[in-house]
Structures are given as structure tokens and as C-alpha cells.
């Protein structure tokens, strides 16, 4: 007998979280541009505030358009639910702020996106939350860095800038043996290329600004919970398992079991920190998600063509892409990312800073800017832009060479992209 079937990924990407609007019949997700919601009567209002009824009160806490995005992302990732945030950085902050207090400690990959590194390495330290950064290559690095006050292990599906592939099954095992959850930044891979919960991760977030939105029109983030981490059994998270005076002495785990983390993230984190997503933003990101399953294969297909072109070009020193046999995580990538390693990668132009600058300035199709995950192809040369104050020696410490160029491969004709890159490389070598 074949059992019942779940809807496929493509169907969920188009439908999950939304049924046609009951009042108007609108098929597309309506943009509920409203701050607040009329109560039927005082009793109804009290019930909503006290979480005795489901519904919306104020759009900083929840909004019907944003809720469609949250439910859809939970469905695509296989989680219990999600909270959408003002940006990917806000999602990371919300995860940390929900789980820990001053005096807590995080173990994180040392190959994080620079913004995440800033938050953990500098800003959160001001608030008493410390982070030990470890090389993601060995799960033992995480184990050795765990302290009695550690509350979270954190990494990215693909590191920056070398696309280090995190061994999520092994690192999650280390985390769980220590009674800790593993948080993953899954921005570069999206649920189309990898679903971290299926490999043992407990929490994840996306900068929805990137491939989820996919068109470079909106800043947003989304934090998703697998609901599978047992906070009560861990015993390390009184934030979720003990009465909280800041929310009417609610014990979030007792109240809601699998939904404890998201309940506190929404009811405290959005209430007090307030980094919520606007409904128009949610609409833009939903529009992107509706074609995620069509865009990602094309992003990957073109990336593979470009990687192959660059890897065999005499003007290129090295290309960092896990599908290349020489990448240190090639075998792991084949196991965890069989559909592809995304469309953001770096390579080194021979000739250092000046060559990199000439390369960038000769491109016509690639747009020179500081973003990734757009339908349009993007490029940046860190040594002459984001890292221009740094010496070559400091650049090396950051894993960036003077000729390192980062590409985000878009959806244009791959032949045009290769022609553009060829023009740039020719100029770089003059």
C-alpha cells in the first residue's frame, strides 16, 4: 500500500499558507496594509490578547500577508512555523535574543557572512553575549569550543567567501550531545537546494532579501523552527521552560510544546525589539518564492558554466566552488548539496588589486554592487570596495585576496555572462 502523499515542493512554493481570500475571492495574496485589527467586542479583544483565540492584534506581532510568507517558508523547510523579520540580520538577532541572556556563549563558524560576524564578534559582546569562532572543517572544532554557558551552535550552509560546506549532520550531533540547538543561515542554498532540518539542524533563517525574494526589491528575513529540539529535556533554556514575568508568568514550553521557541520569539522578540516585516515586503518575497523552484536550477546551471569557464582561464588564479574536485569540501557537497552549491562564489583574478579593479570596471552585464541572490548578475571586488582600507596581509586573514572577486550569477543568457567575464579578464591582464 502506498501511504498518503505530501504536496510537492513546487506546489507548496505556490500555495502554502494561503487560500483564496474568503471575502473577495482574490487569488493572489492580498497586501493587508493595516497596523491593527477591529475586535468584535471586549471579550474578543481580551481573548486575543491573552492568546485564547487565534488571530491578529497589531502588525508588529503578526499580519495576514506576512503570515502567508511565514507559513509558506515553514512548509518549504519542514518546520513548525516561522517568524518573518525586517532583515536577515534581524532574524539572527531574534534567534539569539530568544535563546539567551547576558553571560551566554555561542560557538560559530569563522567563515560567516561579514554582517553576522560583526553582530556576534563585536555588537553582541557589548551586551554580554560572547562568541567563539571556529573553522567549520571539523565538527570537533565545535565540540572543543563548547563551554558550560554555551547556548547555541551556529553556521552557514555555505561559508563566506570560500563556500565551506558545513557538515550539518555531524555538527548537529555535536550540538545535541551537548544539549544545544544548531542554528543555520541557509540564505545561499534556499530550501530548494537543501533543507537543513532534514540533516539535523534545529533552527534556521534566511536573508529573504537574496534568492527567496530573488529580484533585489525588498529587504527581509525569516526565522524558522523545526520544533524538534526538546528545550525541557535540555534543561539549559529557562527562557523557554520557566515562568516568565515579562509575559504573565508564561512557561512557553509548557504552554505550547513544539511551538515554544516561536511563541517567545514572536510574543517577546517582535513585541519588544520590533524588527517586524512590512506586508508589502512579504508580498514581494512571496512573489519571488512562487518561482524559486524555476529560478534556482537556472542559477545553478549558469553558475556551473561560468565556474568551468573561469577554472580553465589563464587569467584566473583559483575558483572556489565546492563542485570542483579541488575544493576541500567537494565530497561533502556531493552528499549534502546534490542539486548544486548555489550561485554565489569567489575567484581570484591574477594581478592583485589593480587587476581586480580593471576587471570590475570593464563589465557591462554584471552589476557592481553589494548584494547577492538577484535575478540580475552581480559582482563585487572586496579589495577595492568593502575591504578597501585593509592591507593585503589583513585581507588574507579575512580569507580574501587582493584579486578576489565575488560573483552572484543571475538569470541572463549564460553565454552573455561568459562573454562579459571574458571582456573583464582581458582588461584585467592589460
Amino acid at each position, binding site marked *: 500500500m502506498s501511504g498518503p502523499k505530501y504536496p510537492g515542493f513546487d506546489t507548496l512554493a505556490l500555495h502554502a499558507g494561503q487560500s483564496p481570500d474568503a471575502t473577495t475571492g482574490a487569488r493572489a495574496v492580498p497586501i493587508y496594509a493595516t497596523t491593527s485589527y477591529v475586535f468584535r467586542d471586549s471579550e474578543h479583544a481580551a481573548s486575543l490578547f*491573552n492568546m485564547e483565540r*487565534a488571530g491578529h492584534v497589531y502588525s508588529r506581532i503578526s499580519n495576514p500577508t506576512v503570515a502567508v510568507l511565514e*507559513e509558506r517558508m515553514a512548509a518549504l523547510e519542514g518546520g513548525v512555523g516561522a517568524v518573518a523579520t525586517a532583515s536577515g540580520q534581524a532574524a539572527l538577532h531574534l534567534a539569539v535574543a530568544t535563546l539567551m541572556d547576558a553571560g551566554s556563549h555561542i560557538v560559530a563558524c569563522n567563515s560567516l557572512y561579514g554582517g553576522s560576524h560583526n553582530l556576534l564578534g563585536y555588537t553582541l559582546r557589548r551586551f554580554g553575549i560572547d562568541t567563539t569562532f571556529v573553522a567549520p572543517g571539523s565538527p570537533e572544532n565545535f565540540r572543543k569550543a563548547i563551554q558550560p554557558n554555551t547556548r547555541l551552535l551556529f553556521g552557514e550552509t555555505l561559508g563566506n567567501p570560500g563556500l565551506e560546506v558545513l557538515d550539518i549532520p555531524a555538527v548537529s550531533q555535536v550540538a545535541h550531545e551537548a544539549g544545544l540547538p544548531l542554528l543555520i543561515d541557509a540564505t545561499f542554498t534556499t530550501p530548494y537546494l537543501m533543507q537543513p532540518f532534514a540533516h539535523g539542524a534545529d533552527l534556521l533563517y534566511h536573508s529573504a532579501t537574496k534568492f527567496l525574494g530573488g529580484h533585489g526589491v525588498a529587504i527581509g528575513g525569516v526565522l524558522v523552527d523545526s520544533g524538534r529540539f526538546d528545550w525541557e529535556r535540555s534543561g539549559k533554556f529557562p527562557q523557554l521552560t520557566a515562568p516568565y514575568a515579562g509575559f504573565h508568568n508564561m512557561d512557553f514550553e509548557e504552554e505550547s510544546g513544539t511551538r515554544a521557541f516561536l511563541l517567545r520569539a514572536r510574543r517577546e522578540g517582535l513585541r519588544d525589539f520590533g524588527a517586524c516585516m512590512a506586508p508589502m515586503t512579504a508580498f514581494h518575497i512571496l512573489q519571488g518564492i512562487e518561482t524559486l523552484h524555476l529560478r534556482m536550477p537556472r542559477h545553478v546551471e549558469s553558475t556551473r558554466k561560468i565556474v568551468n569557464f573561469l577554472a580553465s582561464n589563464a587569467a584566473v588564479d583559483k575558483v572556489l566552488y565546492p563542485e570542483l574536485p579541488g575544493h576541500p569540501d567537494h565530497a561533502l557537497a556531493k552528499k549534502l548539496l546534490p542539486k548544486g552549491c548555489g550561485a554565489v562564489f569567489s575567484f581570484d583574478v591574477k594581478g592583485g588589486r589593480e587587476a581586480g579593479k580593471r576587471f570590475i570596471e570593464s563589465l557591462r552585464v554584471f552589476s557592481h554592487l553589494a548584494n547577492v541572490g538577484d535575478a540580475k548578475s552581480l559582482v563585487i571586488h572586496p579589495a577595492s570596495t568593502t575591504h578597501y582600507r585593509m592591507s593585503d596581509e589583513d585581507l588574507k586573514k579575512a580569507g580574501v585576496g587582493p584579486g578576489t572577486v565575488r560573483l552572484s550569477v543571475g538569470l541572463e543568457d549564460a553565454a552573455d555572462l561568459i562573454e562579459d567575464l571574458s571582456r573583464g579578464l582581458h582588461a584585467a591582464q592589460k
Partner: protein
Amino acid sequence: MNFIVDGRPAFAYTAAHALDPGKPTVVFAHGAGLDHSWFGLQSRYFGYHGRNALALDFPGHGRSAGPPLATIPEMADWVLKLLDAAKLEKASLVGHSMGALVALECAARHPQRIERIALLGIAYPMKVSAAFLDAAQENRQEAYDMETIWGHAPQVPLGGNPNPGMWMYGDTLARLSRLAPGVLYSDLKACHGYAGGEAAAANVKCPVQFILGRRDQMTAAKAGLVFAQKVPGAEVVQIAPSGHSLMAESPDAVLDALAAFLA
């Protein structure tokens, strides 16, 4: 709130309220493989509206120690033992699916202590397919998939959740993933093997309410309606868009029906 029943730790959610013997009591009994949190919104409402709310974790579920109880009559007696441990003389029972069978059996066995029963997502007999039982016995993922998919209306994976930002399938799967091996099978076997439904229906003396989901794929509303006719004077509420997980799929409609019935 923690109790000791039959010498083992037992838990019931009380909406962060101390129990008051002077207040009326509403006990919530969950379905197969689930726990007290499946009645989260409804139990919280009654806890904050003048009742003692006790949302149970049956043995082996949620925070109550195992092993699970093997039969519906054993579960019915366990509910009474928990009321004893809580020093509460009388209660109304709200049961869902397996918990509805427990509520019915409990009311029939202990008429002097059960004031009203509300039966959600119930059919009798509550037969479970061999494929479902086999998968559960072997703790195969397929059993959890069947519980999840048949446990909701067909539109649930694609439709909107009234609880903002949550995905019902994911929530059910996450809860089932925390179960000890064998617990789901034990529950399903208890439902499948329960043979006392007609006798209990004939003997129950207190007011009875049926709340049925018109799109229930686990215990079809049609079967629930046939069974309701065997309970003299039973009130029937049908919730059009709901499947088996009525408390999550139509939380307000369920709460309104319960609030009116238990007023």
C-alpha cells in the same frame, strides 16, 4: 501541574492557575500520539474564565511518564485517578479522537463525577487500518505521515493557518517525532480495540456534545453523526471547513461551541 498517578509522574496543564475546588472543572483529553498542547487555546480560555482547566498528558505523552495505557477503559479510570490526585470531585470532559472515546467511557463508568462531555473528532467503532497499525507497530515514518495527513482536512497543507505563522503539518510531525517508540501504536491499538462505545453511549447520563469536522479524513463526520444518534439528547455541532484537527483548524468555532455547551 505535576501529580503522581499510579505511582508515576503525571502532568496536566492548568493555564498557570492554582486549582480551586470551589470552581467548576474542565478536563481536556488529547488524541493518539499527541499531548496537552493540542488544546492550547481552548484550555487557556477556560483556565482564565472561572474554571479549573486540566489539559492532560496521558502516560507516555508530553510530560507524563510512560508506559502508555493500553486500553480506553484504563485511560478512563486514569482520568478519575488524576482528578483524585488533584482533589477535584467533579469535572466536565472534553476529548478529542482517542480522548473522546476516553471521555465517553469515563462518563459511562463514573456518572456521579462527570458533569458533561464534549466529543471532538469521534467515530465509533474507531477502526484503524492494518497498514496504519503495522507502520505504527514498526515505528515507521509512514505512520507519522498517515497521522499527519489524515489528521487534517485536505486543504490544510495549502491553506492558511488561523494561528499566524504556523504550519499545521510541521507541528504535528514535530510532536510525533518526540514520541517514544511504540506509543503511537499503543494508542491506535487502544482505539481500534475499544468495544464499549455502544454500551457507553446507552449508559451515559450527562449532557453530551459532538463537535465534528465536515472534512475529517480520520474519523469521518458521517460516521460521527451515525454514532451521535445513539446518544440520547446529544447536541451535534458540525464545523464545515475542519478536518480531524478541529482545535487547530477552527480554534474559534471549537471554542465558541465549547463555551456555549459548558456555560
